[in-house]
């Protein structure tokens, strides 16, 4: 039991003590603790499974697909801080992927700086870019905000495609940059096997999920949610809505940018069309909408569901019906929006909650007997 868990469980205890009248309506305390334990065990099992997966899955193709799945889950979770909690729909997050990828690649190709350092620098540049985009656009609502972010992303892509040299920095326009796989190893963020990439993106995903979890329970999370739903009411309750959105944007841009470096080192070739394209921005939004915006599990579930669809349809129909995965995305999105407007996480959450209750009851009975 970590310190935080202890504080939380003791906190629920004090609350229950202070409010005896809620005992009738609320869940009995004992069961709640039991459920928490089952929850934690389940999460730990999931983590163990994720870490052990490369021992079972040996095929590089499958591993590649799973890595991309985690990559998108990571991207969408980072996006979710703004797109989910703050209640706006940014559609230009590929800008930050581009900044991350180009910063680390240029620094490592031209100056021999490790991509790990470039990754952080790219993240910091992305924070500035994110705040710069957010300052004028957060005042807009709904579709106008989405369109403004698209405009920024497209502008950035066109610039990257048309600039060969930015001062001493070689951007190489539409031809992109190739990273020669010479010095492999952890220090250079370059490996001949897929497994190291798998573990790196898995750890990144876990960290970003942890950050999201902490934010959703913090003042910032409450402020973002409130400001996203009813900005006027939120302001009257002491929340500086624009500032909350900007801090979320800064964090989201930083984290998204890290994924850009990862992608560059993973594919060893970047060009504007592949990493600053609207396709990626839209795919992130699709995954979030289908999985469930503003929830923690939503982006991961969305990526788990949609990435295989995309990859498999590309493998099997890539020659005959290119772009089929986008049509499937569209159909799935329409169906989800009609039947599950809050994303598939809601119904899955209910199912999980039910199973958890039954399991807790059974454990309790066993304990009593």
């Amino acid at each position: 039991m970590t310190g935080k868990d202890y504080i939380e469980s003791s906190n629920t205890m004090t609350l229950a003590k202070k409010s005896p009248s809620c005992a009738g309506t609320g869940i009995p305390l004992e069961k709640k603790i039991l459920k928490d334990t089952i929850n934690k065990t389940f999460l730990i099992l999931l983590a163990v499974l994720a870490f052990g997966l490369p021992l079972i899955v040996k095929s590089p193709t499958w591993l590649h697909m799973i890595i991309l799945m985690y990559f998108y889950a990571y991207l969408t979770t980072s996006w979710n801080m703004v797109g989910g909690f703050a209640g706006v729909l940014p559609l230009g997050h590929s800008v930050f992927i581009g900044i991350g990828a180009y910063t680390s690649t240029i620094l490592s190709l031209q100056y021999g700086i490790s991509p790990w350092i470039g990754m952080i620098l790219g993240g910091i540049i992305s924070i500035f870019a994110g705040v710069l985009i957010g300052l004028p656009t957060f005042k807009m609502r709904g579709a106008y905000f989405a369109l403004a972010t698209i405009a920024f992303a497209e502008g950035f892509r066109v610039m990257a495609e048309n600039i060969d040299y930015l001062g001493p920095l070689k951007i190489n326009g539409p031809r992109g940059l190739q990273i020669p796989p010479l010095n492999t190893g952890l220090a250079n963020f370059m490996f001949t096997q897929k497994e190291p990439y798998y573990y790196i993106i898995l750890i990144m995903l876990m960290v970003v999920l942890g950050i999201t979890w902490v934010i959703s329970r913090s003042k910032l999370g409450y402020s973002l949610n409130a400001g996203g739903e009813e900005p006027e009411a939120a302001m009257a309750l002491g929340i500086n809505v624009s500032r909350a959105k900007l801090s979320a944007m800064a964090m989201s841009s930083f984290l998204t940018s890290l994924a850009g470096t990862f992608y560059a080192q993973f594919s060893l070739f970047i060009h504007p069309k592949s990493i600053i394209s609207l396709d990626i921005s839209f795919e992130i939004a699709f995954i979030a909408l289908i999985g469930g915006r503003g929830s923690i599990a939503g982006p991961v579930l969305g990526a788990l569901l949609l990435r295989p669809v995309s990859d498999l349809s590309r493998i099997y129909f890539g020659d005959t019906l290119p772009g089929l995965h986008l049509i499937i995305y569209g159909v799935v999105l329409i169906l989800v929006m009609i039947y599950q407007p809050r994303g598939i996480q809601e119904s899955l959450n209910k199912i999980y909650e039910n199973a958890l209750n039954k399991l807790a009851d059974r454990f309790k009975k066993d304990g009593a007997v």
Partner: protein
Amino acid sequence: MKILEVSDLVMKFGGLTAVDKLNLSIDQGEILGLIGPNGAGKSTAFNCIAGVYPPSEGQIRFNGEIINHQKPWNLCKKGLARTFQIVKPFATKTVLYNVMVGAFATTSNTSEAEEKALNILKTLHFENKKDTRSSSLTIADRKRLEIARAIATEPRLLLLDEVMAGLRPAEVDEMVEIIQQLRLTGITIFVIEHIMRAIMALSDRIVVIHFGKKIAQGTPRDVASNENVIKAYLGDEYGIS
């Protein structure tokens, strides 16, 4: 001591003067009622005081400090809270979540905010609905949620904008009781209301405005028998004969 002093407040929207040279002040611990026919400028005056609109002219002092161009969130931190005439709950969230958002105005600690929110729900007899999603509340409960959220910010002055509109008589009585209880905790209350029975029972003093101008003020009894007020509400042909 005056907690709020409004002097010569003017609010213009283009060519329309919604509030015209309004003067009023509230003593610490008082309940002041603001009434007037529809479109008289009551809510606009409220919005100016709460920082939503910067007033075109005039001065608003809260605790002696001029607050004309302060932002709503800063005013809230200084101890000025408000409710909305058209309720604005965070609809997808639970009642507890809604109140916790207010409680975060004075703390950054989540469990502290939760404890505070639960205490407020308890004093408002609202605890049994703490896990209800606020979109499924009745209108009476939504109004109550507005108040719960506002007092969670620990205000010194609370602006209530028609918290009784649309309620049944029994619910109105309950709301009057809640507001009287709030006053006992030391909160000064400035209330807009259309339900005469309630505002007569609640207010220490009443200010009446019509077309943005103050036409009467005084105790509920004085105001109710004031000729200007009756004319404003019923038209010029009706006078006290």
